């Protein structure tokens, strides 16, 4: 692998641009999507079709005062929003956007992604803890228990994928699925094996929604019971960074789902693979996440944990066992 100085620079610029555009415009997409689902037009005043709305929101947030209330833990309070952003951007190092567009094709990149996903949870914990606010701390405690519960089935389904591909390198996993949608892990019908992989996909998708604290699993934010949870005391860009971190986590989750289950940059019909297919897949997944958010009301904490411990974890364990048996026996 080359070690030219240009590679990290191009990576930094490219990823920052991708992350910035996504963090800003997913907010717009979310509001438009929510509007259409509720038969409203969504933002439409600022610019054509409201396209300048994210810019206006950003300027508004930046011109506001970053209020640090009395009794907060000053340093942690200021650092937490940054920690929310960093893992999301860093995760994109190992995401294979296409065969040629990837910053680093690390071995163990799956492991790195999950380590960084846990860091995002720590940002929520620190933010809630430092705020010195009872809603914020309840919210952080919820976020931690939720993330612990949903990381287990997520990792178990990924283990099944890693066993099939025989690699923890996202690029190798994607290359393993090239050549049309019947090679993708979700419909991997080779020799009649792995007919049940769509179960793993559904488990993974549910867990990725829960990991990013999105509705219907937004126990941490829960604006109707906990005001805004860990974000209650944040104003200005502190709040803005948390929001951007949330959207970036959705993007990373969609990238991971697309790479692990939907063949990465592969074309469904076996021709013209490329970055456009990858982007198409992740935006379809992101749209589904938005669609789910505006369809289902928030669950309760114990139901959330029941779903994970009683349904998702047993299913993913069986998934791992059956996959191992298939690989060993056939």
């Amino acid at each position, binding site marked *: 692998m080359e070690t030219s100085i240009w590679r990290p620079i191009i990576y930094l610029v490219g990823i920052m641009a991708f992350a910035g555009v996504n963090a800003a415009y997913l907010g717009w997409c979310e509001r438009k*999507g929510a509007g*259409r689902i509720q*038969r*409203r*037009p969504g933002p439409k005043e600022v610019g054509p079709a409201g396209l300048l709305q994210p810019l206006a929101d950003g300027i508004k947030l930046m011109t506001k005062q970053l209020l640090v209330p009395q009794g907060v833990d000053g340093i942690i309070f200021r650092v937490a929003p940054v920690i929310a952003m960093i893992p999301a951007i860093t995760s994109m190092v190992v995401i294979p956007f296409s065969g040629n567009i990837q910053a680093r094709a690390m071995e163990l990149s799956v492991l790195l992604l999950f380590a960084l996903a846990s860091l995002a949870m720590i940002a929520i914990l620190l933010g809630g803890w430092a705020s010195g606010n009872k809603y914020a701390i309840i919210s952080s405690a919820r976020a931690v228990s939720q993330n612990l519960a949903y990381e287990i089935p997520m990792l178990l389904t990924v283990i099944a994928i890693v066993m099939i591909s025989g690699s923890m390198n996202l690029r190798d996993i994607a290359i393993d699925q090239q050549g049309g949608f019947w090679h993708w892990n979700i419909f991997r019908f080779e020799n009649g094996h792995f007919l049940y992989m769509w179960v793993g996909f559904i488990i993974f998708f549910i867990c990725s929604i829960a990991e990013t604290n999105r509705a219907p699993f937004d126990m941490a934010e829960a604006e109707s019971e906990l005001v805004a949870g860990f974000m209650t005391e944040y104003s200005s860009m502190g709040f803005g960074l948390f929001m951007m971190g949330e959207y970036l986590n959705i993007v990373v989750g969609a990238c991971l789902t697309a790479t692990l289950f939907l063949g990465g940059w592969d074309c469904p019909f076996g021709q013209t693979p490329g970055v456009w297919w990858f982007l198409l897949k992740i935006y379809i997944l992101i749209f589904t996440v938005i*669609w789910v958010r505006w*369809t*289902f009301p928030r669950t309760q904490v114990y139901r959330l944990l029941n779903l994970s411990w*009683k349904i998702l974890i047993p299913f993913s364990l069986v998934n791992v066992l059956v996959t191992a048996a298939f690989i060993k026996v056939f």
Partner: protein
Amino acid sequence: MSGYWSDILVGSKSLLTGMMITAREFFRPVVTENYPYEVPVMTERFRGHIELIPNEESGKPNCIACMACQRACPSDCISLKGSKKEGDKKKSLDSYILDFTKCSLCGSCVESCNFNALRFSKEYNLASFNKDDFIIDLLKRLEDQN
């Protein structure tokens, strides 16, 4: 264990039903009325403040100043004056002042009118900082409309 599998199946089915409903709504046209740019059409029985009905031929008010509306009004909102002009058979209006600050839109005036001279308007843009804006000269309003 009883109910475990049926819970999963019934739950998944109801989740899918919900998703289908929102997907259908997503593709249906929006129902928002962009109020300041689009003026809504008021419904048939909407009650704005009262207004005079013009004669279809002359455009003058149908009112013959019989004072029935003024007597019918429970809040003394209406004060009108009429006189018989040279050459006319009936009396006609000199002034018709509605004090909308006291009006409760009960409609007794419209009911009491026997000459098809009074009706509810469809006026609804009535916000103002000035109390005097709600003391409305209906005769002048009718002339302005013509």
